[in-house]
Every structure is written in structure tokens, then in C-alpha cells.
């Protein structure tokens, strides 16, 4: 589904990402962990063609993402607040993204019902604009928008960050429920080892831009705890 080959990004002389080979299969739940500055967000940005790689390519379904537009139809993503349009209300934002995916009002209404629990009555039907929302609510809007259009791939950067404990659990349930409903490939980065191992069957650890560990299996958490112990 996604394959990365000899991908590097350097700022000045510092390599921020340097990955020789990485393939993510269709339907895989791929977790990305690593300390601050490991290059997780930069990697995701290159997957989404938001940063021009210094070298190498990212291919999605066999096609290079760089300079292409068609993959955007089946990749949903939320990395940070620059994905949101601050002067719209959440409803207007969903309607806009929905329009891009040919959603009718009824489609959108049905779609948003999946998120009712996560939204906790604070997002939809309000006049508050996205720019005025709290960090946690911003995250909820972005994650929901990433699922519009039944994407085959969903890329989320730190989805649990800034969410209250209840919302974290609800989000986890939602991600698992979506996964059960249809074949979906997750790429999720997180600092929360518990959450990420619960959702992802494969974990890659980045350090200084390089893949230092690529593990699959059931006992991921103990291995990660071992790796990250101070």
C-alpha cells in the first residue's frame, strides 16, 4: 500500500528523516513512536506531500505521491491545526470537506453520528468557530474530518494528545470500531505507549530520523517499555 524508499529530509546539515526502506501493507495498523525530534511528524508530512523530500520517494498504491493529487481521495489525515480552517465553524468545515468527497447533507449527517460520543455535544450545532476551540476540541474536529470520504488510509499525528481521559478512551474505541467495519490502514504516531499498542499491531521506533526498531506481535508494550526506560 505505502512504500518508502531511501527517503531523506535534511535541514541545513542535519538529517531529520533518513529511512532506507519501509513498507506498510494494506489493512495494517502502523504505530510510530519516538522521542521529541525523532522525525515522526516530518515523515508524516512527506507521506502527505507537504514537505519536499531531500531525496527518495513515497509511493502510495504504486504511485509517487509527490506532485500528485489522486491519492488525496483515499487518504484522510490530521497532523496539526494548519489542517483546519480557523474562521469556519466545525459544521461549516465538515460540510466543506464533505463537499470535496461528494457527500450530501444526509451523508454528512449520518457520518457525524459516528462521532457524537467523541464530540460530547461540544462541536456540532454550535456557532463557535474552530479558531476559538480548545486544543482538545480542535483535535476532535481534525480527526473526524480525516474520516470523511471513507479513506483507505488514515494518518493521525498524536491523536491522543490534549484529549481528556474520557475522550481518549472514546477515541480508542472509535478507531477500533472503524477498523472492524472495513479494511482501513492506520498510521498513528503517539507518545502514549499504552494507547498506541492497543490499536496498532506493528510499531516502528524512530530515533534521529532512522528506523531503529520494527516490531510486530502481541507483547509490544513490554518491548517498548524496555526500550524507552530512562
Amino acid at each position, binding site marked *: 500500500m505505502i512504500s518508502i524508499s531511501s527517503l531523506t529530509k535534511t535541514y*541545513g546539515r542535519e538529517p531529520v528523516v533518513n529511512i532506507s526502506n519501509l513498507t506498510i501493507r494494506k489493512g495494517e495498523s502502523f504505530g510510530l513512536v519516538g522521542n521529541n525530534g525523532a522525525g515522526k511528524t516530518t515523515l508524516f508530512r512527506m507521506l*502527505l*506531500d*507537504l*514537505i*519536499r523530500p531531500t531525496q527518495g520517494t513515497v509511493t502510495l498504491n504504486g504511485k509517487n505521491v509527490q*506532485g500528485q*493529487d489522486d491519492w*488525496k*481521495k483515499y*487518504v484522510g*489525515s490530521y497532523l496539526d491545526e*494548519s*489542517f*483546519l*480552517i480557523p*474562521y*469556519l465553524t466545525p459544521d*461549516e468545515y465538515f460540510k*466543506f*470537506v464533505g*463537499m*470535496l*468527497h461528494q457527500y450530501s447533507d444526509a451523508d454528512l449527517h449520518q457520518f457525524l453520528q459516528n462521532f457524537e460520543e467523541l464530540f460530547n455535544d461540544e462541536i456540532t450545532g454550535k456557532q463557535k*468557530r474552530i*479558531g476559538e476551540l480548545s486544543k482538545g476540541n480542535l483535535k476532535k474536529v481534525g480527526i473526524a474530518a480525516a474520516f470523511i*470520504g471513507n479513506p483507505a488510509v488514515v494518518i493521525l499525528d498524536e491523536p491522543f494528545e490534549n484529549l481528556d481521559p474520557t475522550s481518549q478512551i472514546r477515541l480508542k474505541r472509535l478507531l477500533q470500531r472503524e477498523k472492524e467495519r472495513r479494511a482501513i490502514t492506520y498510521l498513528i504516531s503517539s507518545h502514549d505507549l499504552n494507547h498506541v499498542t492497543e490499536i496498532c499491531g506493528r510499531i516502528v521506533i524512530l530515533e534521529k530520523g532512522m528506523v531503529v526498531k520494527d516490531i510486530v506481535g502481541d507483547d509490544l508494550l513490554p518491548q517498548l517499555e524496555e526500550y524507552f526506560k530512562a
Partner: protein
Amino acid sequence: MNVNVVKATIFFFIRLYLNCLQNVILHLNIIKLNFLLLNGWKKSVRSVAFEKELATHIFLGLIAIMVFGYSIALGFFLEKIITTGFNQPDSVKFVSGLLLYYFWFEFMLRYFMQSTASLEIQPYLHLPISRKYLVHYLLIKSVLHLLNFLSLVLFAPFAFTAVARQVGTSAWVWLLSIYLISLSLHYIVLIFKKGLDDTVVGFLALTGGMGLLALADYYNWFRLSDASTVFFEFILRNPLVLVGLLAWLLLIYFFNFNYFLRGMYPEELAPHKNSKESSIQNLALLQNLGMLGEWVNLELKLIMRNKRTRSVLFLSGFFLLYGLIFYTNKTYTQDMPGFLLFVAIFITGIFMINYGQFLFSWQSVHFDFTLTQPGSIAQVVASKYWLLCGITIICFILSIPYVYFGWHILLIHGAATLFNIGVNVFVIMNMALWDPKKIDLSKSSMMNYQGVGAAQWVMGIPILVAPYVFYLPFSIGGYPTWGLLAVGMVGLLGLIFRTQLLTLTTNRLQARKYAIAAGFRKE
């Protein structure tokens, strides 16, 4: 030339044009466009700044309406003004001669007022909208700028009265050619600002171009007006030139298109964010001055590392050439020498005026930091004083070559500099303390009115009026040189009593710091 070659060339351009048009139309999905335009509208109406700076916007809007009103009026009376006012029998020829100057003026106007809101499309980049669509949207929407209607407003009335009387329906050709050139200027400025703005090359190209034109006219190398007349009369006789102009416009459009398409990455769309290595390090000279020098160093870094402040600095360099307009013209040097004092105040003090008006706003993001650091507020105030004075003195030194136009110019500049660093600097610092507004430098662009409050609107008055209070009594009495000396002396007095004046300014800051800090903390 062979008729067939001409035909083939024309057909080629028509085909190219049709292809391009088709390309554009294919990308114009109407529903999507509605949404994008609606979003753009919501953005401007709903922004926090819109409500907060409503008064400023209304004021600017009124000015814009006024300018347009005057332009239309000017357009209608242009012929009368030229034939009776300037005693020129052929008004069309006369205006044609001025057109290239007008385009130069329009270019400068565009350079300072036009900006691409290229970051506006950032939230759409990861969504399923094709990149080509977004670039077309960005480029075509950019035409909806007041400046793109200026040439029409200004010249349409003239074209349909005076020009039409002379050449009949060819007036259309005349007007259209002006509009096409104006539009191509629009796209040239877009790409110029994208690629060369804020670079030394771009700065030199601008100042060099302007200086060259002024000098060429002064020394009679060639006259732009003659070239202009020839060009536009040629167009009137050969309407086919329009096709060439259209092709030229499309060429620039697609040059822009390719340039933007290749650079559709947020890092590259953003105006040079952190892209510059910290080019200015601490100046060793200033470090010897202790804490005071450190504060000056900090502020120099602020100026060099932020686009908006950098353009204030560049503008000051640009204003050094301001004198070329006036000192080369006998109307000013001989008939109204008093006016030159005004020019000199600007040449030496433009940085002080432009930067100083927001003196405390520039650092509004870390004002709390400034207040909580060891060291006294007096030092902060003193550092700002020396920064403004230092750059004013540098402007004076750089303006010394104007002595070529006469020693009295040096005298005027000296008096103006003394007055600037003795009196005006304190006027500006104290006016800047009057309810300063927050400026977020990360949101930088020309035509950014963030930070503009009441003080900024009236600040120019005392600065420009004050020197004349001392100059006019002597000059009316017939001793203009004594007037200049008086202006210089008053400046010198301010310089001598700077410690006392600085203390007064510091006390005002002390008294107002809580209110200012609270104002800055508000979003």
C-alpha cells in the same frame, strides 16, 4: 515578413490561448469554487482583526473610495487639464508620453501594496482538490485587487472622450493595451515578490531601476516620455499588438502558474519562515556597551529576522533616493527651498518614523519578558533611543553624496538629522507609548495594519510641523540659512539634554507599563 509566417504565429498564439482557457475552465469546478470563495469571504469578515480594526478598515475604505472618486474625476477632466492647464495641444500624445511613467508608478504601488495570500490555501493541501485548481484559484483570485481597476478607472473616461475623438473606435485598443500591461504588471509583481523580494538582488534591482530612470532623465540619455509616446502611437496604428500583449500576459500567467505549482509546499509558500540562517550575530562593538548594547543587539536581531521589520529597513534604504526626485528639479531647489527641509527630515528620519511608531509594539509578544528581566526599564528605553539615533545618523552619512547637488543640501540634511535625533526621536518615542497595539510578527505582510492605532494616524503631524516652527520665522524674515541653523540648534539642545528627556520618557513608560502589558496580553 512573410504573410504565412505571421498567420502561423497568430494561429499558434490563438491555439495556445484556447488551450490555456480550456485548461482553466476544466479546473473550474463551480461548486468547489463557490465554497473556496465563500471561505475567503468568511475569512475576512470573521477574523478577529476585522472586528478589532474595524475603524481602521472603514477609514481605509473611505480613503479608497475617495482616491477612486478623484481618479474618475481626474479621468474626466484630464483632457481639459492638459489642453488648458499645461497648454498642450495634443492631449492624447501628452498622456501617451506619460504612460510609461504611470506604469513605473503602478509597479511601485503594487510592489508595496500587493501581497499573495498563498498561505490561504494551506488548509486545502491535504484535501482532495487538485493542486492545479488551487494555483489557478490563487492566481485568478488575486486579480480581485483594487489596484487592478486603477488603470481602467483612470484612463477609461479619457479613452472614450479625448482618444475616441481623435482615433474613433481605436480608443478600445488604446485602453485595452493599457489594461493588459497593467494586468501583466500584476503578475510580474506577484512573481517578483515571491522570488526576489526580501533579497539583496531584488532590492538592488528596484533601487537601481529607479535611480537609473531618474538619472537618465536628468542627463538626457534618453527620455522615457519619448519612448512612451512612440510605443502607444504604434499600438494605435497596429491593433494587432494587442494579440502580442495578450500572449505576453498569458506567458507571465503560466510562468507564475508553474512557479507556484512547483512550490506548493507550506514551507515554500510561507514567506521565508526561518529559512535564513541567523545572518546577523551579535555586534562585538555593541557588546562592549554592557546591558544597553545587549538590548540593542536583541532589537537588531528582531529587525533582521522578521520580514515586516526588514521591509521597514529596506524602505529606509529606498527613501534615501527620495532626494533624486526633488534635488534634480529646479522647481524645488530654487523656488521653494523650505520644502527641502521636509524632504531632508524624511530622508534621514524615515526609519525613525516608520519603525519608531510601533517602537513598543514590535516586542509586544515578549513584553512581559522584558519587564521581568534583570536590568532597568531605563536601559530598555535608552537602547531604543540609541537604535533610532544610530540608524538616523547612518542614513545621514549615506545621504552625503547629495552634496553633488549643492552644499546647502548637506546643510539641510545636517540640520534635519540634528532635529531628528534631538527632538523628533522623543516625540516619536512618547507617541509610541500612547496605547500601543499588539503586533504579531509571525503574521507578516505588507498592508498589514496590525498595530495601527490613533497615535499612528496623527504622529506625522508634529514630526513634520515642528521643524518649521523654528525655520519659518527666519525664512520669512529673509534669512533661510539662519532658519536651518536654528533648527539644528534646537536639535542640539535636545541632544544635550537627552538624559533628562530620557528620564521623562522612562517615567512615562513606568507609569503606563501595566496598561500596556495588559493590552499586549489580549489576543
